[in-house]
């Protein structure tokens, strides 16, 4: 048939379905496929599987062509390579091979996109697969991070190590969630095995997986006990489960008469058909230990181990059977409750579920420990009663003796730094020409100052408040000023007090501004952490960052120009601090390089 890594078949290459096609030979390897036409003047094809996204094929049919279409990216409309084969079997072989090759290339393609930067890793970086996966996952989930990553790491401004150095917390956050929890039992009742009935051959097939067996042992202690007793001494495991399934089948068909009959014959089968005695005794013990302070109204109907549940049977029909066959019936509520109890208890053992015998033994061991503990507890009965009485008195609360509730508190909220973005306009205003801080000089000594204050106070005591407190025209001016101020901020900021300037900009601009801001933050963070420059590595890093930062200026200018004229002032106020920050960084860079040049010159 040819090597598994290569397939060669005769085929015709068609550009469309109706095209008669050029005959030739199609050779496929795992990485690419090559089509050589019989006529050397026609086109030759050689395409990597990396570019093939999928494959389509025609169904088998006598009057249909055996076509295989290898499709490319969906952007290229109708961009696919159609091959017609002589027989369907040829086509199928090629199709399977293509499927395999695509799966392989897909597996290789995904990491390569985001791992291209991994090539620029430092040599002493040991990146294991897990770490890589975590980073990729993080990038996939957080689109902002992905944008930053793409902008800086892929373009070479920052290395992977530097980018992820400050984000360790994000990366570690995932690992903690991975494997701390043990998976418990499923809440679906898989121990209730549904058989496959084959009407034709009259066979009923039960399939038991190790997981199901584990649950059966957990839920039905009688079966568990029987397993430990009978296997392998009295019967093989296969026989055991066959008998068990027979019992299940009898229950399922509600054939209690037949069940009674068979139970009388086969004592092992009887174990499966009878009620679970172990379970019954356990339940009785538990009832005795119920906390008396539990406010629960229990009546006879809740004693689910003995009575049928209010006449409602497994599948809803109301059947009334003889008490003679009472023990051969199971009720839905019993099974559900038992299952629920087992699920909530959790997995008692951690053994691998392969070998049934070992599972059974491990389960028995854990049960033994538990029963030993319980028996020990019950033996100290006198103490137990006293304890219960104490507990009762503690539990009954007297409401008006309770302490007052906690004071209402507002939770401390650490805000997203994005919220502060537009409130820094104040700083922008300051630098754009505010009066700044004027240091007032006080020429009086402290005695004089205090003295004048006391004088004023005593004067008021005598004279009283000024009459009128406020001149009417002054009041009017103040009032108008306030109104104008409030309405103008309302006009500029919007009626919603939580709305900001950012919300009034078009979405694209807003996204761009915020993205620039986060990328400037990122760059500056790395820039300032590289000072003082002690190694050439830091020197080159600083240069890289400086170049990246200088690209941002024209971009910010562009944004300013792209907005409408009435918003331009707001945008320039928002952009101002970013530019200031960049200017400060550049100033520092220049000063530092001058200093170092001077130092070098001295030497």
């Amino acid at each position, binding site marked *: 048939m040819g090597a598994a890594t290569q397939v060669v078949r005769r085929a015709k290459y068609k550009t469309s379905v109706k095209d008669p096609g050029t005959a030739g030979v199609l050779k496929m390897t795992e990485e690419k496929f090559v089509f050589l036409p019989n006529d050397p003047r026609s086109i030759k094809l050689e395409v990597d599987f990396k570019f093939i996204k999928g494959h389509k094929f025609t169904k088998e049919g006598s009057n249909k062509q055996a076509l295989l279409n290898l499709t490319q990216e969906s952007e290229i409309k109708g961009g696919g390579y159609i091959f017609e084969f002589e027989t369907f079997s040829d086509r199928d072989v090629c199709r399977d091979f293509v499927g395999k090759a695509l799966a392989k290339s897909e597996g290789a393609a995904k990491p390569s996109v985001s791992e291209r930067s991994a090539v620029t890793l430092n040599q002493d970086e040991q990146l294991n697969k897990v770490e890589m996966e975590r980073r990729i996952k993080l990038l996939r989930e957080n689109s902002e991070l992905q944008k930053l990553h793409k902008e800086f790491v892929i373009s070479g401004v920052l290395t992977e190590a530097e980018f992820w150095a*400050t984000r360790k917390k994000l990366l570690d956050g995932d690992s903690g969630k991975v494997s701390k929890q043990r998976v418990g039992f499923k809440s679906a009742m898989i121990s209730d095995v549904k058989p496959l009935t084959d009407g034709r051959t009259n066979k009923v097939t039960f399939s038991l997986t190790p997981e199901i067996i584990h649950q059966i042992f957990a839920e039905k202690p009688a079966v568990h006990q029987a397993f430990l007793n009978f296997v392998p001494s009295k019967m093989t495991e296969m026989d055991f489960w066959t008998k068990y399934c027979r019992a299940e089948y009898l229950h399922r068909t509600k054939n209690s008469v037949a069940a009674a009959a068979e139970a009388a014959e086969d004592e092992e089968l009887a174990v499966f058909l009878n009620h679970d005695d172990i379970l019954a005794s356990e339940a009785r013990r538990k009832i005795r230990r119920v906390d008396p302070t539990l406010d629960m109204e229990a009546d006879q*109907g*809740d004693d*689910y181990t003995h009575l049928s*549940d209010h006449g409602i049977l497994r599948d809803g029909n109301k059947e009334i059977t003889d008490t003679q066959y009472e023990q051969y019936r199971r009720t839905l*509520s019993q099974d559900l409750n038992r299952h629920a109890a087992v699920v909530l208890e959790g997995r008692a053992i951690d053994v691998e579920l392969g070998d049934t015998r070992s599972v059974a033994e491990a389960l028995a061991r854990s049960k033994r420990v538990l029963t030993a503990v319980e028996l020990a507890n019950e033996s100290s009965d006198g103490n137990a009663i006293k304890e219960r009485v104490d507990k009762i008195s503690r539990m009954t609360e007297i409401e008006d003796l309770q302490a007052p509730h906690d*004071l*209402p*508190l*507002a*939770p*401390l909220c650490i805000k997203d730094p994005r919220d*502060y*973005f537009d*409130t*820094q306009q*104040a*700083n*922008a205003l300051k630098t754009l020409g505010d*009066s*700044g*801080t*004027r*240091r*007032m000089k*006080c020429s009086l*000594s*402290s*005695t*004089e*100052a*205090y003295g*004048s*204050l*006391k004088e*004023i*106070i005593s004067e*008021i*005591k005598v004279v*009283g408040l*000024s009459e009128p*407190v*406020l001149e009417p025209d*002054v*009041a009017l001016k*103040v*009032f108008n*000023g*306030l109104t104008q101020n*409030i309405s103008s*901020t*309302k006009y500029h900021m919007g009626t919603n007090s939580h709305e900001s300037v950012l919300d009034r900009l078009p979405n694209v601009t807003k996204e761009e501004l915020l993205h620039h801001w986060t990328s400037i*933050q990122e760059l500056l*963070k790395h820039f*300032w*952490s590289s000072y003082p420059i*002690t*190694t050439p590595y830091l020197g080159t890093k600083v240069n890289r960052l400086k170049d990246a930062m200088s690209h941002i200026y024209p971009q910010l200018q562009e944004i300013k120009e792209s907005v409408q004229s009435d918003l331009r002032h707001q945008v320039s106020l928002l952009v101002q*601090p970013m530019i200031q*920050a960049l200017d400060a960084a550049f100033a520092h860079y220049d000063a530092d390089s001058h200093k170092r040049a001077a130092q070098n010159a001295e030497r």
Partner: protein
Amino acid sequence: MCICLLVETAEIPLMAPVPLYADDVSLLMVLLDTNPFFWSTASLSFSSFLSHVLAFLNSALLLNQLNQVVVVATGFNSCDYIYDSSSSAAFNQSSPALCTTLLQTLEEFVSKDEQLSTKNEVIGIGSSLLSGSLSMALCYIQRVFRSGPIRPQPRILCLQGSPDGPEQYVAIMNSIFSAQRSMVPIDSCVIGGQHSAFLQQASYITGGVYLKPQQMDGMFQYLSTVFATDLHSRSFLQLPKPAGIDFRASCFCHKNTIDMGYICSVCLSIFCKHHKKCSTCGSVFGKSSAVDNLTSDRKRKHPETCP
């Protein structure tokens, strides 16, 4: 029939209990700046300022029969409670009596404050003890909280003229956060010449109103228009909003207001110069090595990233 179910317990957030008063009863804590050096150089005279403030206090008490007003004086060397409208002495007092009591106590306070002054010469105006009076106001409010379910809604009004004292930065920020946590808004009315960064932050964080009046002789109008409203009514009133907040902090070593500095990664204390050891928590800072940028604790502080 008992079937075990897994129930998710949801946490019900504690809302402020609705007081059994009508919802517009307020407790107004007024923090009065009595820094003599400031008042000797202020554009508004202390006497007219007092007239405005006393008239305002009266009107606040008139707005609702159950309203309470407490005045705390922010002095140069000390702070003290000057007036409490709910004290038995103040009960059933009419306006002239209020003024007399208040002025009397204020005079005594100023004398006490003078006695505590150590230096004869002061550089500039100096700053008044805002952190102290904020703490006293918050303590009073906490006591009111614990007095029972029936209580007025408290808020704090700072009438501040002296400039910010950077050495009080930590204490003021602590008071601001505790006010935020207790849901007590801090309103600020700045009488001095320049904006106060601390009060801007205080009002922003706690949800209060910050105002720097343009016209000083209309002080009463400002106070009664902006600051007299109770908390419930504020939800449907438009009150002035500042254009922006100055979020800069001051360094712990020299108490200068800084833009860029060094931060200890353990306790987040801010320093303007590189130190070998953090003075707050004592952790030793490592040397900044070439490849390992993480051991050094330098970070550029943006005004916009400072919470």
